[in-house]
């Protein structure tokens, strides 16, 4: 599987971005960029070719859900794989993420294996 994809990690907690980077590295992904919220993420997405987005749900300024909706509404970005991350486990949350076009959904806490399997499955589906 392609490991050189550029992954954008979006989370308002700097430490969680570091944790995600560490887990992704364990899966062989090294090409990682970071953003602290949805607005910063959009700036990056517009300036760089991003192959995969991993975003936290709850963030100030622009939530992960709003970022997802914005990405899906943009013709040039709409196909970008989008993995939603949250500590929330309520079924309504999963449904609203899927309805908004999330490629998949992962609940914290998770291991490197679980995260990297999710990414692999999404990338497989994308062909």
């Amino acid at each position, binding site marked *: 599987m392609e490991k050189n994809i550029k992954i954008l990690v979006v989370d308002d*907690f*700097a*430490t*969680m971005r*570091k*944790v995600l980077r*560490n887990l992704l*590295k364990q899966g062989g992904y090294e090409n990682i960029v970071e953003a602290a919220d949805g607005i910063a993420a959009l700036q990056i997405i517009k300036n760089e070719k991003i192959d995969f987005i991993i975003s936290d749900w*709850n963030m100030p300024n622009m939530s992960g859900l709003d970022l997802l909706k914005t990405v899906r509404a943009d013709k040039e970005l709409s196909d970008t794989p989008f993995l939603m991350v*949250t*500590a*929330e*486990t*309520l079924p309504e949350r999963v449904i609203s993420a899927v309805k908004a076009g999330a490629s998949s959904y992962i*609940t*914290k*806490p*998770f*291991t490197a294996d679980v995260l990297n399997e999710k990414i692999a499955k999404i990338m497989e589906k994308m062909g």
Partner: protein
Amino acid sequence: MDKKFIDAFVAGTADVIKTMAFVDTKPGEPYIKKDNIACGDVSGIIGLTGAVIGSLALSFSESCILRIVSNMLGEEITTLNEDIRDAVGEITNMASGGGRKILADGGLNITAAIPTIVWGTNHSIMHVLGGPSIIIPCSTADGSFVVDLCLKEK
């Protein structure tokens, strides 16, 4: 406070620490705490509403949280820096989510606010209900932490 709340949040906390930091947790005997002085060196607190109202706090000794966060980040952290405070907020958030998931499976829906972090010697934990709270002391190979719960069923 019903034992199921204690069990759920202790299990949620232990799961986060085991999954994200590979650290095993051994819970001890619960006791009641009447003051608001934290049991640890750095604490996260999160408000809860729904089937219960109140708050969950996690309070870590320095040695314990340094090991947990070092393992989470894959790099050695030796002082209580910004990474540690950030991580305590995230751990508190995830522990709350894990405990709430267990309770939701039993039909008790609870939502959480955004965690706040406090630190320093003898810092205070200000529970939403004021107190008293139930402390569940937990030990790990690298030091201790407590689950500090102050809840009222609706």
